[in-house]
């Protein structure tokens, strides 16, 4: 079969990324031709600034060498500018007469610099800052001339100025506005930036209007409106870029601040023609940062591949400056204004300035100078539109002030040694991350996570990883559409899946996958357990559990260990045990030669190193209920000895804990759930770091919720004070049922509470008495008659075949 013809006009980062995505999913669909106006293969345009500054070389920034095009069978026309598109005959024509026919056309023409329309703009020595040729011209000029003027004090202009200064030129930046980078920084931060650049030797003319560039053949000086002249042997125009739409307009495609495309990146005029990158205007915005352009490329590729899935719904962006040694970050509406409140930290002496803008209890903008490690956290809060009332007092001090661990308190990646650990969860060092970024050509945080696992677990080192990404590849973090897909199998987020299961009364994983157009036939190890949980928690006694969609621990009802053996933790109600239980445990340890016995933090005993074959017999011989220590379920209720023994105890916390545990055990949840009950405010049972922490006081019980002693220590928040043990059970149970019904899979109570807000939980559990009782009843209904998987195998659907390996009889085979 004849392949379809795909022609791409433009050979830059967004376009080539689109081809890469396309070749990944449909390698043989198209015969591909690429036209590039520049004589170079695809290179990393973002890194031109480090090249100019002498920190990298041109060779190092090539992304796809010529050999790549050859390997992919792409016909590459370099140095040939396309000047005409014939949409009727479906032909593109280049300046030199080369023509190519297309079935699908991809426009990736990027953007052009805006040249100030002043007299003298065509003199020698007046250039823009856009491509390798411009960069080379600047490098050459720096070797021969002394005075440079950069017009434009934005991101690009300052990077150019810094580079030229590093190459020995005397640089003056001319900027029309009263402060630098006014679209990214407020006046204070802009002033600090100027100060810092001035100290490096750059001069500034702020509020200055350029009237003319003076000179005969080559530029000699810049003249301002007020008549002053400053010497200039080189003038770099960096006053902005415009989407390059000339070609598209001439062929009749609708353009408005870019080539107008829909959510599938098709031009609205001609469905055979797609546009991605800086030339495309999506919902009125032409993006200039890598992450959104790559996102566009991904979506565009799926449509070119005729999968017809995926939509691009826009990105929010943030900014960082690529000038070594200067850290600044801004995102959102950092200027504030009507109805907005500002929190400002200013320490000019230390070179640190941070401004957070809050409106309607949400972070809407951030501007950071000098310390940007929390930029990504602020950006996340901003994107998610999360209410910040509960963390407002700590907001300014960053994510680490909320409790942090794993990277030794480092906040500046540049100051870390190569061998320092950046990601404590996965043991990833700085050098490993940098190497992966370079060798594998990574651009986005997600890619770094996939390849190195850095920041892929707890995420507390995300800021550091982003700094490394920024320094190494020039990547930015203008991440992601607003709702994050559950996994690669679907475009739907957790909430959408939960809603669909409830609203459409879906009862099996297959039904969910069909109803929501899953991309894979049976999901993956990430979405299947989640969907299985959503079905069971939404339709208890109706949806049927699918053990094959559970992680091994919940299939074998024990915890898998690194050597493939298992651990067994029997339930000890409220941490109480007896001589006969201990005796049985001791006998089992001897009989099955179990190598280790450990006292757990949850006041139970852990038998480690049990062979899988022995599990059923071990359970039987111990004769105690399953501790569910292996499950996303209620684990323990930790208690202190309470008023029964303790001379300070005010309440019988042990009994309260045991009653709670008996009421809640076998309760599966989005994640593990741990409770504690202390008999007095001295809190020996550590109720302050539990999902539900109950503290006895003289007049009753205080209930705290959503504490966590994990990666980030989170202190539980006071929820309510009640009088009786019955109320403790009802209120705790209602909160947990709400979490079970609304939580996303693998979301601990603390993250659930952060997401929905304390107000919401209080409204549902405290203010609405009937609703609370209904929640508590639904939980009891779910738990009623649930089996103990260690004893009721059939009812719990425990597949006993897993405990017996097959032992085939192998006939004697002659030796080879």
């Amino acid at each position: 079969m004849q392949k379809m013809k795909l022609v791409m006009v433009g050979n830059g980062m967004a376009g080539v990324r689109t081809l890469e995505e396309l070749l990944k999913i449909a390698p043989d669909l198209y015969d591909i031709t690429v036209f590039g106006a520049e004589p170079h293969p695809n290179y990393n345009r973002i890194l031109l600034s480090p090249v100019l500054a002498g920190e990298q070389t041109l060779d190092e920034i090539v992304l796809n060498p010529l050999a790549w095009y050859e390997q992919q069978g792409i016909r590459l026309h370099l140095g040939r500018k396309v000047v005409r598109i014939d949409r009727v005959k479906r032909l593109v024509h280049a300046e030199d007469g080369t023509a190519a026919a297309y079935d699908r056309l991809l426009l990736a023409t990027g953007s052009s610099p805006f040249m100030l329309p002043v007299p003298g703009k065509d003199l020698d020595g007046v250039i823009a800052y856009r491509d390798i040729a411009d960069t080379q011209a600047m490098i050459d000029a720096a070797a021969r001339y002394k005075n440079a003027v950069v017009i434009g004090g934005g991101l690009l202009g300052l990077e150019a100025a810094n580079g030229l200064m590093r190459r020995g030129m005397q640089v003056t930046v001319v900027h029309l506005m009263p402060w630098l980078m006014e679209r990214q920084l407020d006046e204070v931060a802009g002033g600090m930036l100027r100060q810092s650049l001035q100290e490096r030797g750059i001069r500034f003319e702020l509020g200055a209007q350029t009237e003319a560039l003076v000179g005969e053949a080559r530029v000699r000086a810049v003249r301002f409106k007020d008549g002053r002249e400053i010497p200039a042997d080189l003038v770099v125009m960096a006053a902005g870029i415009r989407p390059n739409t000339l070609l598209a307009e001439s062929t009749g495609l609708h353009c408005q601040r870019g080539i107008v495309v829909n959510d599938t990146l098709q031009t609205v005029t001609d469905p055979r023609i797609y546009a991605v990158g800086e030339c495309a205007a999506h919902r009125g915005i032409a993006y200039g940062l890598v992450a959104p352009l790559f996102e566009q490329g991904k979506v565009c590729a799926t449509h070119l591949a005729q999968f017809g899935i995926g939509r691009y719904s826009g990105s929010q962006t943030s900014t960082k400056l690529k000038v070594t040694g200067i850290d600044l970050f801004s995102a959102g509406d950092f200027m504030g204004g009507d109805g907005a409140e500002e929190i400002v930290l200013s320490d000019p002496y230390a070179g640190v300035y941070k401004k957070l803008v809050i409106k309607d209890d949400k972070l809407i903008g951030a501007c950071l100078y000098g310390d940007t490690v929390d930029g990504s956290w602020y950006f996340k809060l901003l994107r998610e539109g999360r209410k910040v009332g509960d963390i407002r007092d700590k907001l300014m001090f960053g994510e680490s002030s909320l409790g942090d661990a794993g990277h030794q308190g480092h906040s500046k990646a540049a100051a870390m040694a190569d061998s320092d650990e950046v990601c404590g969860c996965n043991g990833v060092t700085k050098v490993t991350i940098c190497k992966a970024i370079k060798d594998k050509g990574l651009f986005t945080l997600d890619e770094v996570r996939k390849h190195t696992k850095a920041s892929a677990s707890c995420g507390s080192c995300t800021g550091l990883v982003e700094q490394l990404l920024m320094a190494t590849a020039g990547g930015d973090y203008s991440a992601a559409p607003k709702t994050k897909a559950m996994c690669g199998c679907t475009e739907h987020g957790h909430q959408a899946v939960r809603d669909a299961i409830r609203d459409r009364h879906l009862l099996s994983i297959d039904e969910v996958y069909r109803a929501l157009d899953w991309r894979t036939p049976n999901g993956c190890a990430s979405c299947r357990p989640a969907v299985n949980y959503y079905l069971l928690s939404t339709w208890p006694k109706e949806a049927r559990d699918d053990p094959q969609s559970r992680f091994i621990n919940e299939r074998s009802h024990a915890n898998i260990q690194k050597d493939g053996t298992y651990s067994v933790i029997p339930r000890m109600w409220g941490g109480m045990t007896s001589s006969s239980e201990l005796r049985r445990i001791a006998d089992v340890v001897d009989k099955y030669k179990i190598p280790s016995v450990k006292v757990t933090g949850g006041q139970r005993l852990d038998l480690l190193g049990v062979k899988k074959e022995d599990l059923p017999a071990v359970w039987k011989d111990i004769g105690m209920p399953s501790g569910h220590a292996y499950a996303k379920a209620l684990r323990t209720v930790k208690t202190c000895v309470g008023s029964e023994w303790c001379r300070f105890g005010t309440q019988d916390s042990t009994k309260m804990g045991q009653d709670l545990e008996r009421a809640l055990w076998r309760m599966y949840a989005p994640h593990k759930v741990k409770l504690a009950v202390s008999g007095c405010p001295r809190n020996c049972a550590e109720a302050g770091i539990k999902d539900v922490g109950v503290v006895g006081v003289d007049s009753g019980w205080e209930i705290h919720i959503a504490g966590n002693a994990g990666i980030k220590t989170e202190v539980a928040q006071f929820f309510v004070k009640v009088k009786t043990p019955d109320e403790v059970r009802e209120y705790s149970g209602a909160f947990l049922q709400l979490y079970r019904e609304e939580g996303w899979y693998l979301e601990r109570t603390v993250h659930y509470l952060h997401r929905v807000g304390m107000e919401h939980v209080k409204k549902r559990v405290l203010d609405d008495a009937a609703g609370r009782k209904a929640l508590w009843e639904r939980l009891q209904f779910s738990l009623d008659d649930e089996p103990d998987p260690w004893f009721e195998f059939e009812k719990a659907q425990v597949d006993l075949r897993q405990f017996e390996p097959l032992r085939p009889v192998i006939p004697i085979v002659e030796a080879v």
Partner: protein
Amino acid sequence: MNEEWVAVCRVEDIPVLGARRIARERGAAVAVFRTADDRVFALLDRCPHKGGPLSQGIVAGDGVACPLHNWTIGLADGCARGADSGCTPKFAVRVQGGRVHLDAQELLQHALDPVAA
């Protein structure tokens, strides 16, 4: 010499989207997997990453996610997918009359020594 096929179990002895372990006299166990459409594959029961027992993983499509660190291993080639790299030895499988057969020679001799752990 002639190939000797050994019957190890029936297809239905393996859970759909699941696995069974086959113990061997010498060497690590072999895992036999069954996909949703009843295809059967066999791999050494050892993840190329840290040696996790693949038979205990979650099977989806024609891959299995290792229970230890969630690497996804292709059932047909035994190789890690996505950004991870490494392969575990695969074993020939023949299904006949609903019975799963492995190659006796392979069961006795294939992948006996731990590949650099």
